[in-house]
């Protein structure tokens, strides 16, 4: 401790998070032990343990990755059946510059595992789509962003950037502002893949199959989704989904901004439930720094997360019903949503995208009438939800339009990597708030709604019930009352000092200057933190190199695998069914394309 700290007016609260020591996760030893167990169980050659991580991390040789994934998937005790994520990271100073990172989840054991493959330039990786169908699009994204090719991939072409794009943007040597323009003539034609049950010989039928393009500018395409379908009469026999129409380069922007400056970018991922993304990112950085936000901040984070979850479900249900022709529910449900947004506005000043959280707590304290306003909203919401449910659930037209529509089996849903309401609608009771609790969710009395069938009707049921469960949590939280205390952690390396101190004390001025100019500098290392977003597990994987900008930020997009499986859901159905199914998936392009 220096004399500066001893004489300072700011009380010394403990060792500051420093970037001079590498990040050692709290559970590193337990994770290493578990990693050794997993290694022993799968008994595959070419796999070693990478020690000192927050998840059991295995380093796999390039040629062996598909076999290792198959072993992890099939092993009766391990059962890593859910593919969470696949992404890359670029370390140009290494001879094998790319890290291809796989993250898997085991539903039976509630544990995650991370695998890494190190490849150099012009080295290919065997594809893993035969083990996990969901990794199809993820591998395309790694190819798009890094240029790593996957041998055996059925359709390896760009997914997020446009077809005239050159270069691989997430490489460290790619200039973030280098754009490539796409002219109208440069747009490539898409040929949908025919579903296996409909493949027929050439010239086998009297009828010609028609290709129809839906989107991206379309009333029911929820923004920027594009689906090209092949129709045999009215039946969809094949489809191809095209995304990337809102690729706003979140991950590259994160590398060029400081840790606090990334927070507004995270708001705009799932923009219907922005606070939940903030929570995920801020808690990931806090995990790496080894600090915890004060109880008051966590309480407000929980309340706003649940309110925004309700707002997200309102938008999903409302717009889905508009696609089916029922507009009244949309107008009606948006009134309580305005109240929720007004509550956020009273806290932060901004309506839809509050950017209210900071690393270490909240930006500012909540207003005095926060709890009474929250109580008023919790009192008004059940009436709206009940009335809308009564309007539609016994309506024969609604039931016939959504039952059996857009079905995906539980096995397929898990194999694609579904999480969130779409997975719970197939009968799997997986919710990150129960599996890996944060913000105190384990101290509240609530249930995870699960429906059977995996069709649009099941997804409706799950979302209605989730809103009610969120209201349950909110009512209990409001009864407990707002904890007293600060809303920001008392650590000058993370939190800006109050303005009066900045103008009156030298140390505060220095801390303020350092934080603004150099930002938060977490220790060197990597971490992963997951929260339950409106659509499923939103995970943030952060790599820090000790400087003010993150080295790598990866946001796991929950609706990426869901839209990937959309083609399978609508094969054999008609266009109106496809529209009904799409609305129930709640594909938010900000999160899908990042």
């Amino acid at each position, binding site marked *: 401790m220096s004399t500066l700290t001893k004489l300072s007016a700011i009380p010394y609260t403990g060792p500051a998070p420093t970037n001079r020591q590498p990040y050692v996760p709290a559970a590193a030893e337990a994770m290493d032990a578990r990693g050794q167990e997993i290694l022993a169980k799968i008994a595959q050659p070419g796999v070693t343990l990478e020690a000192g991580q927050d998840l059991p991390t295995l380093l796999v040789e390039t040629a062996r990755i598909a076999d290792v994934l198959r072993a992890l998937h099939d092993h009766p005790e391990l059962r890593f059946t859910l593919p969470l994520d696949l992404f890359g990271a670029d370390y140009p100073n290494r001879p094998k510059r790319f890290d291809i990172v796989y993250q898997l989840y085991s539903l039976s054991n509630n544990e995650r595992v991370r695998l890494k493959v190190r490849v150099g330039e012009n080295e290919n990786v065997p594809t893993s789509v035969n083990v996990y169908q969901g990794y199809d699009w993820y591998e395309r994204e790694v190819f798009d962003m890094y240029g790593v090719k996957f041998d055996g991939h059925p359709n390896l072409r760009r997914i*997020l*950037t*446009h077809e005239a*794009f050159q270069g691989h*943007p997430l490489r460290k040597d*790619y*200039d*973030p*502002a*280098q*754009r*490539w*323009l*796409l*002219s*109208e003539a440069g*747009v490539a034609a898409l040929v949908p893949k025919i579903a296996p049950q409909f493949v027929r010989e050439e010239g086998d039928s009297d009828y010609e199959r028609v290709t129809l393009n839906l989107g*991206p*500018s*379309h*009333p029911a395409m929820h*923004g*920027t989704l594009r689906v090209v379908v092949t129709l045999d009469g009215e039946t969809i026999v094949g489809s191809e989904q095209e995304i*990337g*129409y*809102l*690729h*706003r*380069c979140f991950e*590259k*922007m994160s590398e060029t901004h400081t840790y606090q400056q990334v927070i*507004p*970018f995270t708001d*705009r991922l799932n*923009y*219907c439930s922005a606070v939940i993304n903030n929570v995920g990112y801020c808690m990931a950085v806090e995990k790496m720094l080894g600090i915890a936000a004060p109880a008051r901040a966590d309480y407000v984070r929980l309340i706003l997360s649940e309110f925004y979850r309700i707002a997200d479900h309102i*938008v999903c249900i409302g*717009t889905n019903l508009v696609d089916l022709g029922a507009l009244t529910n*949309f*107008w009606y449900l*948006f*009134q309580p*949503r*305005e*109240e929720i*947004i*007004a*509550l956020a506005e*009273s806290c932060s000043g901004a*309506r*839809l*995208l509050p950017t209210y959280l900071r690393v270490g707590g909240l930006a500012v304290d909540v207003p005095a*009438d926060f709890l009474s*306003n929250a109580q*008023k*909203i919790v*009192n*008004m919401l059940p009436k709206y939800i009940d009335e809308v449910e009564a309007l539609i659930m016994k309506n024969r037209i609604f039931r016939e339009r959504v039952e059996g529509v857009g079905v995906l089996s539980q096995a397929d849903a898990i194999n694609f990597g579904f999480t969130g309401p779409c997975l719970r609608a197939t009968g799997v009771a997986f919710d990150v708030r129960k599996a890996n609790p944060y913000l105190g969710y384990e101290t509240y009395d609530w249930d995870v709604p699960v429906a059977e069938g995996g069709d649009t009707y099941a997804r409706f049921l799950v979302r209605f019930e989730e809103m009610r469960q969120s209201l349950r949590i909110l009512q209990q939280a409001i009864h407990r009352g707002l904890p007293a205390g600060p809303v920001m952690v008392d650590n000058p390396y993370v939190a800006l000092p109050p303005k009066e101190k900045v103008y009156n004390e030298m140390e505060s001025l220095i801390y303020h200057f350092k934080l603004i100019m150099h930002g938060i500098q977490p220790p060197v290392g990597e971490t992963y933190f997951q929260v339950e977003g409106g659509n499923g597990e939103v995970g943030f994987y952060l790599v820090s190199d000790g400087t003010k900008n993150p080295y790598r930020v990866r946001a796991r997009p929950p609706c990426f695998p869901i839209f990937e499986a959309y083609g399978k859901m609508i094969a054999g159905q008609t266009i109106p069914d496809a529209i009904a199914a799409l609305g129930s998936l709640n594909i938010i*392009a*900000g999160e899908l394309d990042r």
Partner: protein
Amino acid sequence: MSVEKNERTDSIIPRKAGLPPGEGAEKGLITLPGESEREVEDLAGATYLTTKLESVVNWARGNSLWPLPFGTACCAIEFMSMVSSHYDISRFGAETVRFSPRQADLMIVAGTIVDKIAPVLKKIYDQMPEPKYVIAMGACATSGGFYRAYHVVQGIDEIIPVDIWVPGCPPTPDGLMYGILKLRDKIQRGEIRRG
């Protein structure tokens, strides 16, 4: 205008005191923008007014803007709030939201436009019949927002002409409504000369 407490006890949204009813409406005066007031004469039970044809046409165009919401991102959600009952743009004639460019005259570009969707935006704009107007809603449509990145168009005026820029990230629904009303004023003053 003062900010009063909300009369409805279940709403937390603060309300402003309403404006007094316009004096002109009581006297039966009708004013078109740009015209001086004329008293409407009662001639054997009938009412009439004299003005230029162009003014009437502009008045009609301004009060019946049919939006095409080219909504890509977060601004589209605030656009949804604007057409919803709380803010309600249908009071100003813009209720019929048409996603077909052939049937709309006002394109509201709500959200980030990226290079991949830029040709689509141009095509949709070209398909709209004259007279057509464009509102760039939000920071991303205006200038790329805070995405100075490899895939984001730095303002839609790179591709199509824009009449009104609405700032905000996202703009509040009343901000967007203000932009639409400003466009209406522009049209009714005859400042936009189209086909």
